[in-house]
């Protein structure tokens, strides 16, 4: 942190600044929203490969003899069902069944890593601490002494593989490997991402971040790799219909209406939020849907969704899809809203015709090469 900034900076901050990254506050961090244009960066990831600094995401490690009980109590998915080197999407629920945060849980031999959202790190840590009770173990917040770099796009594998000393193509989706980048930087490399493309995320020590980043830029040069900001990350995840906390998930949105009820394992035994979630599973309320608008104008968070003039829901996220060349949005609407009728979104006082579409808006042409 510099003296004139109240915000956290990632180990790549100076690089972003020197390369024209437009820095904005996000979740308490100063992050690049874009280097060139959002659409250019978005297309690079869909067609080639892009590099994202996601060091603002929270990284917490857990070890000790009681961590399985601890994490199974704190999260909604089944931590016990994880095998070594596998990653699980999960949620931290409050007592009302709302979502404090959505997280990834990595199972290492004898230990776990939890990756949480930047803006929810304090709340996630507090929830995890309160869930420990008498389980023996330690949680360490490694966010500040590590960096996290996402390599995303159809050329991600070819970009990253030459730099990693473990066989990258053997890592399946939602799995990871531990090894060295550049022959020296200890790294946790996972086949994960938030773009709807094949790709990887690497966690390395903070001191190694710039070297790894620059080596990736060099390795990806033949594919016209570009650095990408949070702007493209948002349009990419939206096309892929991935939920974003604060939009599709929140402490007042339950996992079932958000469409992530599959990450709630009511049968696994007691966990925080379970009684409320049991009731919500029977009566989830609204449902998350996809909308395509006739206009190019964007229906942003909070816009009213109307059926024959009657409000039936609210937009949670909207953008202009570079891939579809259309205005798209996700919304929560009444679960039993009739399928027929004139659907509109109130975009800043003007009603724009819209239609329901199946999510995701975009699905990559073929799945990643998987070698279990």
């Amino acid at each position, binding site marked *: 942190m510099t003296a004139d900034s109240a915000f956290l900076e990632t180990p790549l901050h100076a690089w972003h600044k020197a390369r024209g990254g437009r820095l904005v506050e996000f979740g308490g961090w100063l992050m690049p*929203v874009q280097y060139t244009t959002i659409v250019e960066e978005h297309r690079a990831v869909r067609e080639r490969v892009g590099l994202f600094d996601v060091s603002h995401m929270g990284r917490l490690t857990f070890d000790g003899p009681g961590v399985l009980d601890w994490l199974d109590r704190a999260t909604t998915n089944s931590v016990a069902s994880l095998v070594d080197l596998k990653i699980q999407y999960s949620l931290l629920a409050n007592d009302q069944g709302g979502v404090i945060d959505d997280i990834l849980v990595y199972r290492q031999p004898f230990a776990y890593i939890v990756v949480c959202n930047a803006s929810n790190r304090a709340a996630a840590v507090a929830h995890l601490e309160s869930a420990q009770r008498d389980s023996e173990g330690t949680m360490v917040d490694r966010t500040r002494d590590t960096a996290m770099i996402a390599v995303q796009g159809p050329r991600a594998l070819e970009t990253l593989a030459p730099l990693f000393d473990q066989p990258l193509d053997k890592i399946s989706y939602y799995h990871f490997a531990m090894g060295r980048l550049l022959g020296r930087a200890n790294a946790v490399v996972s086949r994960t991402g938030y773009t709807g493309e094949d790709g990887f995320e690497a966690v390395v020590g903070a001191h190694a971040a710039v070297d790894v980043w620059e080596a990736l830029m060099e390795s990806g040069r033949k594919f016209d790799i570009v650095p990408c900001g949070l702007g493209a990350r948002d349009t990419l995840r939206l096309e892929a219909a991935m939920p974003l906390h604060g939009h599709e998930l929140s402490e007042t949105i339950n996992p079932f209406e958000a469409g992530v009820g599959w990450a709630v394992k009511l049968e696994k035994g007691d966990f925080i939020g379970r009684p409320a979630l049991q009731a919500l599973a029977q009566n989830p309320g609204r449902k998350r849907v996809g909308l395509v608008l006739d206009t190019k*104008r964007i229906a942003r968070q909070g816009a009213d969704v109307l059926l024959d003039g009657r409000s039936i829901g609210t937009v949670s996220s909207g953008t202009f899809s570079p891939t579809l060349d259309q205005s798209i949005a996700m919304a929560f609407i009444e679960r039993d809203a009739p399928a027929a009728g004139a659907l509109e979104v109130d975009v800043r006082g003007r009603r724009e015709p819209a239609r329901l579409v199946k999510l995701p808006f975009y699905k990559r042409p073929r799945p990643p090469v998987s070698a279990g």
Partner: protein
Amino acid sequence: MDPKTLKYSPTHEWVALAGDVATVGISRFAVDQLTDLIVIDLPKVGARLTAGKSFGEIESVKAVSDLYAPVSGEVVEVNAAISGDVQLLAADPYEKGWLVKVNVGPNPDLSGLLDHDAYVKKTAEEHDH
């Protein structure tokens, strides 16, 4: 238009006055800051603009921004080409990308506007903030 001869509002609109008619656009700086323009919403011929008040909106992937009238008067012409394809504005904000022409009458008040040098200085400060 030569950007050096134009007058600018602090909200990044430019004005070129020829007789009673002012041509209004937005600056290259504004276009570069917005990036990823999607759509622009302009008033119709005959609409009355009031200096300092919104007369339309321009939307990019990131956000929607109001367009503020740098002068008061009646819209006499609208650039339909950019309503159809806002990329024309992104490519050429001072020629093909003009927004509206406004009849401002005789002796319009341009005292709230900046000349080119003052505007450039202001945007440099904004950029460094």
